[in-house]
């Protein structure tokens, strides 16, 4: 299902959920070999000797999965890019065989007076494992096109609308 929402289509408190992706050991190792080649992300023996006790996914991998799930849902129409300050807390490790799903909620909205046709949409992104434990907690601002701009009725002199 795709939503294809523009900035004005969102409201505070809107929530979206995704399906799950099961994270396999080979996916964990492949990602880590390229981006985070610490021993406990790529070797069973090394991970067994580490406080975690078994191979676990790089935190950068779990974040990438979250944003992949977000993009796949097609929540935001056209394009969105990162604005503002992104904050992430890695709460629990992700092990091979865990299934990660995400929930997103709109927590703040701001029209951008300096950038007519764009709005700042702050969302919480929360990733859960199959036991419904929070594995990653994230807050992120997306810069999103307004419907007016997409439909070509925003001019340089107009703003994207009142502050919501």
């Amino acid at each position, binding site marked *: 299902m795709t939503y294809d929402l523009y900035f004005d289509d969102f409201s505070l408190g809107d929530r979206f959920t995704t399906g799950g992706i099961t994270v396999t050991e080979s996916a964990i190792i492949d990602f880590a070999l390229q981006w985070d080649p610490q021993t406990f992300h790529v070797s069973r023996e090394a991970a067994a000797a580490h406080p975690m006790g078994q191979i676990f996914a790089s935190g950068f991998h779990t974040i*990438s999965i979250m944003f992949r799930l977000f*993009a796949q849902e097609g929540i935001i129409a056209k394009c969105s890019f990162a604005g503002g300050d992104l904050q992430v807390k890695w709460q629990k490790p992700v092990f091979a065989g865990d299934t990660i799903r995400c929930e997103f909620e709109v927590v703040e909205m701001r029209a951008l007076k300096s950038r007519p046709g764009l709005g700042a949409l702050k969302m919480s992104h929360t990733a859960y494992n199959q036991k419904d434990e929070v594995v990653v907690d994230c807050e992120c601002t997306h810069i999103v096109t307004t419907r007016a701009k997409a439909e070509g009725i925003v001019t340089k002199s107009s703003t994207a609308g009142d502050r919501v």
Partner: protein
Amino acid sequence: MSANPIYYDDLHIGRRVETAWHEMTREAIIAFARDFDPQPFHLTDEGGKASAFGRLVASGLHTFAVFNKLRLATEPGLAITAGLGFDKLRFMVPVDPGDRLQVRGEVFEKRLSGSKPDRGVVGWKYQSVNQRGEPVMGLEFFLMIAKGPEAMAG
């Protein structure tokens, strides 16, 4: 670990690090975006032209992954027991195909763990800069670091 371990007490406030340079090739930008950030302006020139950027640019997630790769390659001996998270991650300037990035960082915060005295939280302020010296990304990054080899044992 083949590298000399870096423990909590080795990381004094103000300790600086500077990594090697990494080139963001067009092929790598597209490949990463396909896997993790499949938006049109990370995948094709047409998609780029139609976007607010006016051209194909790298995904912020990709720039972020490169930051970690460079950071780790420069300090492979860091005795990390857990990654905690990061704060104030922001992207200042788009990254174009062919840009080269370097990471510069400094320890700005540290405190022993309340519950586990054999480890502590260390915070770094990092920036990725491009070949023109422009900061493209900045963040504060927090890791739990062991005080000694005992904390790294399973």
